[in-house]
C-alpha cells in the first residue's frame, strides 16, 4: 500500500536518510524502531511531504507522491500524528478536531466520527471547550490521535506516541491504536523508541540505524533477536 524505495533525504548538507526501503501492506501495523537521531521522524516527515526526498520514490497504492505538497498527501489518505503531538494550543479541543476534518465536507460523517473519537476518549468530550494548550500530555496525545482520525485516514503515521507519558496512559494509547487497526482496517505505521511496546503491538518491524534500515522481520521475531535485545530492549 505504502512503499518507500531507495529514499534519500537531506537537511541542508546532512544526509539523514541513506536509501531506505520500507513497504507497508494494507491493514498492517508496522513499527520502526531505532535510537535517537537514527532518522525515524525524518522517515515520517518525508512520507508526509514536509521534508521531500532528494532521491528515491514514495508511493501510495502505486501513485508517486514523493514530491507532493503535504496537504495533497493528506488528501490521498495519509495522516500523521507528529512527534510532540503539535496540538494547536490556542484552539479549543473541538476546534482542533474540526481542523482534523479540514478536507472533509460530509457533515454527517464528521458528526459520526466526532462521536466515535469522543467514545474512544471520553475525557476529550468533557474538555471540548478547553483550549488545547491546557491539556495534560496524555490528553494531548489522545487529542492528536483523534484529530488524525477525523480525516478518516487510510494510513496513520504515529511518531513516538509513548513519549513523556505515564505507563498506564501508554498502555491505553497502544490498546486504542490496535483497536483502530482492527475496527477500521486502518494501516498503521508507528515510529517508537520504546521498542518492546512497539514490537509487541506490530505485525512487522523495521530497525533503523544512522539513516539506514538494518533489519526487518515480524514483530515477534525481532523481539527474540539477540542484537535487538541487546541494543534496544536492554536485555
Amino acid at each position, binding site marked *: 500500500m505504502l512503499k518507500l524505495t531507495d529514499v534519500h533525504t537531506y537537511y541542508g548538507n546532512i544526509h539523514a536518510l541513506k536509501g531506505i526501503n520500507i513497504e507497508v501492506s494494507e491493514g498492517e501495523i508496522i513499527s520502526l524502531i531505532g535510537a535517537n537521531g537514527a532518522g525515524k521522524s525524518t522517515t515520517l516527515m518525508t512520507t*508526509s*511531504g*514536509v521534508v521531500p526526498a532528494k532521491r528515491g520514490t514514495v508511493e501510495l497504492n502505486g501513485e508517486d507522491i514523493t514530491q507532493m*505538497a*503535504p*496537504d495533497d498527501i*493528506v*488528501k490521498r489518505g495519509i*495522516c*500523521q500524528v*507528529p512527534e*510532540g503531538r*503539535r496540538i*494547536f*494550543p*490556542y*484552539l479549543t479541543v473541538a*476546534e482542533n478536531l*474540526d*481542523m*482534523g476534518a*479540514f*478536507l472533509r465536507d460530509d457533515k454527517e460523517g464528521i458528526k459520526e466520527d466526532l462521536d466515535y473519537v469522543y467514545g474512544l476518549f471520553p475525557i476529550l468530550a468533557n474538555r471540548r471547550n478547553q483550549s488545547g*494548550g*491546557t*491539556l495534560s*500530555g496524555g490528553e*494531548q496525545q489522545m487529542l492528536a490521535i483523534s*484529530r*488524525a482520525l477525523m*480525516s478518516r485516514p487510510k494510513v496513520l503515521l504515529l511518531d513516538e506516541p509513548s513519549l513523556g507519558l505515564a505507563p498506564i496512559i501508554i498502555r491505553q494509547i497502544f490498546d486504542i491504536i490496535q483497536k483502530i487497526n482492527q475496527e477500521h482496517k486502518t494501516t498503521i505505521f508507528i515510529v517508537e523508541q520504546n521498542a518492546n511496546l512497539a514490537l509487541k503491538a506490530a505485525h512487522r518491524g523495521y530497525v533503523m540505524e544512522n539513516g539506514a534500515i538494518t533489519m526487518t522481520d515480524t514483530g515477534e521475531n525481532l523481539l527474540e533477536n539477540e542484537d535487538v535485545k541487546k541494543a534496544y530492549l536492554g536485555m
Partner: protein
Amino acid sequence: MRWINILLGLAVAGILGFYGIRELLADPVYFLELFLGGLVRGSIYALIALGYTMVYGIIQLINFAHGEIYMIGAMTALIVASVLGLWGWHSAVIAILAVVFAVVYSCAYGFTVEKIAYKPLRTAPRLSALISAIGMSLFLQNYVMLAQTPEFQPFESLIPDFAFWEPYAHIITSVELAIIITTVVVMILLGMLIKFTKIGKAMRATAQDKIMSSLVGINVNNVISTTFVVGSATAAIGGVLIACHVGQINFFIGFLAGLKAFIAAVLGGIGSVPGAVLGSLVLGISESFFTGYFWSEYEDVFAFTILVIILIFRPSGILGKHETQKV
C-alpha cells in the same frame, strides 16, 4: 523594578485622570468632541492595523507595504468616483462602486505583493523579508506618484450629509458617524470570520503551527494569501473613509497612516486581533486629547513617543501573549 513601574503607572494615570475630569467639568461639549474625534481616528487606525497584526500573526512579518495598500484603495476610489462623476451617475451608485473597486484593487495588490516580495523569502532570515517589505513600500509609493501625480488631489466625499443628522452635526459629522459605524460592522464581520468559519479557523491554526496545519491538509500558502487579501480589504475601506473625511489625497498618505497603525498594533500587542482594535482606539483617543489640550503640532511626536514608551516598558503590548506553551 516591578513596583516602581506600577507606582509610575499609577502616578501617570492619577495625573491624567485629574486633568481629564477637570477639563470634562470645565467644558463637557469640547471634551466629547475630542473623544469622538479620537474614536474616528482610532477606527481608521484599527482598519489598517488589522492587516498588520493578522499578517504578523501568521508569518511574523511587519508588512511595511501595508500603508501603500490603503493609499491604493483611496486612489482607486478617487479615480472611479471621478470617472463615474463625469458620466453623471447617481451619487449612491458612485459611492458603492468606488468602494467595491477600491477593495478589489487593494486585494489584488496585497495578494500580488505577497506572491512577489514575501513568498520567495518564506524560508529566508526574517530581516530579508522586512527589507523586501520596505522596498515594496517605496516602489508602490513612487509607482503611484509616477502613474498619477505627486500633487494633492481633492477628494469629494462619497458620503452625503444626512438631513436627519443635521441637529447633531456640530458634535460629529455624518462622515465621522459613517466611519465609526462602518468600522464596527467590519470588526464584527471579521471577528465572525476568524472565530466561526473554516478559513478563519485555518488562519488561526496556521498562525500557531504551520507544519502541523499542513499535516491536517491545510494549504498554508492559500491561507497566507487569504490573510493578505482580508487585511487589504479592510485597509482599502479605511482608505476610502479617511479620504472622505480629509477631503484630499496623494501618493504619500499611506506612509504616516501606515506607521500610526503599526504603532497601534504594537500598542495593542502585535499578532492579536482584539489587541489591534484596542491599541488603535487608545492611540486615536489619546492623540485626539493631546492635540486638543496641548500642542496640536506635536501630534506625530506624541504617537512615536508612545511607541518608544511601549517598547521600553511593555514590548508585548497591552494584550500581548505571555503564556508559555505546553509541548
